[in-house]
């Protein structure tokens, strides 16, 4: 539903508002790099605006800090209704490496609901463009959770006296699950 809504509402252009709630400016520079002629995103209609009241998308950088959490919440509330929040960088996604210090509340999703995550410290400008393309629905996301499983529990137990050989094929009978 969210995807359809995105394609319908944001198909033409995204106006982004750039909110830094206590980051180190690394992600800010990458976001500004996206807007420079090298990665010219204005050709896709993405435009940086100075006020949250004009914006469709809020780009959050930096963790939610004690001192800026209220301001971030107010900026989010000031945005008009169909709105998206992007968490850019590992600080906004998970709290950064100073996640357990005094002044850091945690990821920005503790303060505002986050729709899309772009991890990286800082993410490459291409990664930011890719995340926006995932949000708009131009491309599919490439990542999926990876699980390597050793065995399934409970472990099947085999009794050696129940092994029977039949034409080079060993058949386990009376398999009992522990």
């Amino acid at each position: 539903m969210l995807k359809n809504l995105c394609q319908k509402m944001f198909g033409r252009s995204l106006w982004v508002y750039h909110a830094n709630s206590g980051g180190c400016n690394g992600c800010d520079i990458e976001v500004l790099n996206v807007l420079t002629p090298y990665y010219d995103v204005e050709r896709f209609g993405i435009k940086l605006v100075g006020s949250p009241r004009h914006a469709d998308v809020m780009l959050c950088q930096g963790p939610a800090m004690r001192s800026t959490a209220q301001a971030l919440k107010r900026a989010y509330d000031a945005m008009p209704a169909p709105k998206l929040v992007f968490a850019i960088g590992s600080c906004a996604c998970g709290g950064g490496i100073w996640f357990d210090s005094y002044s850091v509340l945690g990821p920005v999703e503790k303060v505002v609901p986050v729709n899309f995550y772009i991890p990286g410290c800082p993410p490459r400008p291409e990664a930011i463009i890719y995340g926006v393309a995932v949000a708009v629905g131009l491309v599919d996301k490439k990542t999926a959770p990876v699980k390597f499983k050793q065995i399934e529990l409970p472990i099947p137990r085999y009794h050696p006296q129940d092994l029977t050989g039949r034409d080079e094929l060993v058949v386990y009978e009376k398999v009992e699950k522990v």
Partner: protein
Amino acid sequence: MSVLSKLQEAVVCLKAGRVTLPYPVKSQPVPEKFRGRPLFDAAKCTGCGGCANNCPAREILLFDLCQEIRIVQYLGRRCTYCGRCADVCPEKAITMSHEFETGTNAIGDIQQRVELFMSTCQRCGRCFKEPSALEQLKLKGYRVDDVAHERWVFRSKSYLETEPAVDDIKIEMD
């Protein structure tokens, strides 16, 4: 005067040519030393926990399901791609890949979970030892994190009091 300067500007712009990179159509190769997402190789990993102890963001969790099965879980939310896990890995099971297109709508998509079959030392019952004497004092037995809630368990919890020292500061071990 202004016409001349405009002409000069036009010449400069024409000389520079087109600088916009054709990213969505054709992606540029990343630099050779670029560190992207770490990839875990379950076949090479021995479960020593060096990556978990050296991760500055505490994003690699260790959990012992039973005596034989150890879970190494990489969460990747606040991973800064520093590459220390790949540096300390004695078996070179972690490689820093060149993947950077990890934008997603669910943060759990960048998780990697490896289940390992651990053998037991016949003499001491444990396989690995902490490097320094202080570390050995701190750690009783295995390091066990809270994998179900994806939380890194603060190591000194095993001997410190559970009551917080200051009431108004609520420290979240996230």
